[in-house]
């Protein structure tokens, strides 16, 4: 089940700065809301996002309840070598969703 979506260029020139956009379908329930019965809806958020390129971490983020549902992140990296760019989202129930895209660097 793919719940994540990543937008990154498939090819790039060496040394070029590429923009990466990553989004995942997630409710990001804050834990501050009450349901119709007056009971607080338990918190359920993505708390950590990591992006690795060529097996090195290039970007990571700690997210809090103030991030909108379906967290969307835009960041950039320098194209160095051909290979895979990997993405991992971890929520507060320790469930991790991963995705990987290939990039060809010329």
């Amino acid at each position: 089940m793919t719940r994540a979506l990543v937008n990154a260029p498939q090819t790039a020139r060496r040394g070029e700065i590429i923009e990466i956009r990553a989004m995942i379908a997630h409710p990001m329930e804050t834990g501050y809301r009450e349901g119709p019965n007056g009971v607080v809806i338990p918190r359920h958020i993505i708390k950590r996002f990591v992006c690795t390129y060529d097996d090195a971490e290039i970007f990571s983020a700690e997210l809090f309840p103030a991030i909108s549902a379906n967290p969307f992140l835009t960041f950039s990296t320098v194209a160095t070598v051909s290979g895979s760019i990997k993405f991992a989202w971890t929520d507060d129930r320790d469930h991790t969703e991963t995705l990987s895209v290939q990039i060809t660097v010329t």
Partner: protein
Amino acid sequence: MRDNNLHLRVTPQSRLIGRRELLAASAAGVIAFAVPMRALARPALDQAISNFAGGAEVRDGRVQLEIPPLVENGNAVGVTVSVDSPMTATDHVRRIALLNEKNPQADVAVFHLGPRAGRARVATRIRLAASQVVVAIAETSDGRFWSSKASVIVTLAACIEDISKS
């Protein structure tokens, strides 16, 4: 506990009135409305800033915080933070924090960057529970902290919109 969430427990009818009042209030430039009680109990923005900076001095400048000054829907507010930095191995941005003044929690997000980012620019979408000040702080590789503030008027706060969905 229940009293803290008065702003969340509204009937559909009173919610309509609430929205109208919000619009009127924002039109009149009145901001003091619908501030959750719980928000008052949380650590202040200044406290959150010094926690992130570890007590170091935070200067103005080098950080550009792009956020719309007036937003209709507090549930998804686009934010872009860019830092004036060459992003080399010796001079780069290590961390960028987004903090807010009046949500139940001061933290919004912390981004970790490095020289491989190429450019110190991140964007995301955040929730705002009330009209308030949003702060972006960047830590550079020399251990200094830079910040930028923006004040945002929210006509439809995140909490009010949420209850209409449930």
